[in-house]
């Protein structure tokens, strides 16, 4: 359907870089020319607590929040959080968990968020170069090398 919207939920704990990953993802989709909306929660709900954000894209998106049961891709930085998003998901939801990434090969544990984007990127049709541009535009220069490597690591992860 031409008016279909793709829904991606990124979830983890406060401090794991959920918001940064969301920002990069939304910007990539925006630069591809989609209508994009994202929704996230700040403040009291962070501080190490469970946190998630929604990114939606398509020809036209209305609500910034993914309706119940309509998540297409659930990206979990911490797999034990999965049960929290049971109602958001359906049998069609593709779950991308942190175990997709070999964390021992990450130069920095903090770059897990970008590695997860690398895994997700295989499901979306944006070119790797665009992802790299946005990663560099979003993160400070001293983090570029570690995050570019993390993205590549995630992107090369073989899908099951």
């Amino acid at each position, binding site marked *: 359907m031409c008016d279909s919207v793709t829904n991606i939920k990124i979830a983890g704990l406060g401090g794991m870089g959920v918001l940064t990953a969301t920002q990069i993802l*939304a910007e990539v989709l925006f630069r591809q020319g989609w209508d994009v*909306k994202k929704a996230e929660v700040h403040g009291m709900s962070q501080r190490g*607590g469970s946190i998630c954000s929604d990114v939606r894209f398509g020809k036209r998106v209305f609500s910034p929040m993914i309706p119940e049961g309509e998540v297409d891709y659930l990206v979990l930085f911490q797999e034990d959080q999965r049960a929290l998003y049971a109602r958001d998901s359906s049998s069609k939801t593709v779950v991308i968990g942190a175990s997709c990434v070999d964390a021992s090969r990450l130069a920095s544990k903090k770059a897990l968020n970008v590695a997860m984007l690398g895994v997700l990127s295989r499901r979306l049709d944006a070119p790797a170069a665009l992802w790299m541009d946005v990663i560099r535009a979003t993160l400070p220069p001293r983090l570029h090398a570690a995050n570019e490597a993390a993205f590549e690591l995630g992107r090369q992860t073989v899908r099951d």
Partner: protein
Amino acid sequence: MERRFLMGNEAVALGALHQGAARGTGYPGTPSSEILEYFSGFGGAAEWAPNEKVAAEVALGVAFAGVRAFVTMKHVGLNVAADVLFTAAYSGVDGALVFVVADDPGLASSQNEQDSRRYAVAAGVPMLEPSDSQEAYDYTRLAFDVSERWKLPVILRLTTRVCHSGTIVAPRAPVAELPEAHFERNIPHRVMVPAHARAAHRRLRQKLAEIVEWNEREGPNELVEGSGDLGVIASGVAYQHAREAAKDASFFKVGMSYPLPMRAILSFAASVKRCVVIEENDPYLADAVRAAGGRIESAPELYRFGELDVGRVRRIFRGDVSPEPAAQRGKPPQLCAGCPHRTVFEILKRHDCIVAGDIGCYTLGALEPLAAMDTQICMGASIGVGLGLRHVLPRKEAKRVVSVIGDSTFVHSGLTGLAEMAYNVPSTGHVLLILDNATTAMTGQQEHPGTGRLLNRAPTNTLDYARVAEAMNIPYVEVYDPVAEADAFESALLRALERDELTVLIARRPCILSVARQRAEPANQG
């Protein structure tokens, strides 16, 4: 101009910049905090004030000088600034004054779900309600226009999902010509003694009568023609949810929610078979339309609680009043590992203190397993509530009462509480703990008058809490590092609880997050 992907708060900041705001003021509060930070980042003149009332007063002064000002706050901040709002509505302004107020339906990070639309009605000031970042940008610019045209403060009402959602924005060219600040004496308009205020009240009502006509004719309201079977009246982000939930319906989107374009709304309601009002928080629109004789349906009472989403709006359309599944609760927020507040609450718990608490990260001290805070109501309440308890509790219990307040909250609303403590002294004395982590931590480590740095991190004066307490003649004022000097701090607390006198204990140790941030920030920002 090139389209950009912006958060709602960022879009407000850009709108203010493009509309030539001479100064933005405010006090941090989720979900409004980033607006001034973005505005400053864009090159605008922005400041954190000690609290929302002072911020609004500074902004009013800017607007009295004939230029454009805005003040940002969360919904409960408007309670603090309400004194300014109500009478600034009478005095009016010379330039422009926009109150940017962010409501938090669903309580993502707040102590209540109050609906700021009631303030627009109560104070008699126009209110605009954007539903996404594009409108956040457009309505910010429009708010300055409306304010300048009618010489009235205007409220831009945001909600969490508008502030913290990102959507695409097509900015317009910035205004080319800006007014220059100047002072023109106008005592009858700016000195609100009764004789002047009587006339000012009439002027206010006259302006509102003009604005309602403007809103009917050319206000930022939108008609979407769809099926005649279902019509929806909606505002804010609820409109976006409803568009998705009822793709074929007709819509009347309310952009200016006070004063309402009631003729247009009633004619829309009459044009469809079934008309449903979809709104978050209070049934403000529904009540107003009904009072004007409109035949509408509105959400059952259960949808008044929490924020709306597409699923809930679908249920409202179906008239579903069955109990909703309980929200999934994940890992709750907690004090960070290494947070200096932890030690303090462990000590308070160990001695079974009755803790009158306050608003900030340290409110997390109320959660299990610490469970070491007994009250939390509003900014600054720790001191007054603690004193009230001390005044009436039996001596044995009164002796266990401690007021706990953070540094930013102390500057915001604790100074007057401390004056009360020094003035109306309970017979058992009292103990005030100021948890000084040198930042406004909860909302994202903003500066305040006690940190010695401005919003843009440039150096300025530093308020000294100990000397303030001494100046108020508090007999015991002591400062400890609650982690490095945990034992000394604990003994000092015990001594303070023992004697029937007033003590201010300052637990001073920087927030671990802000230490990390300051290390990461380039030195040239210092």
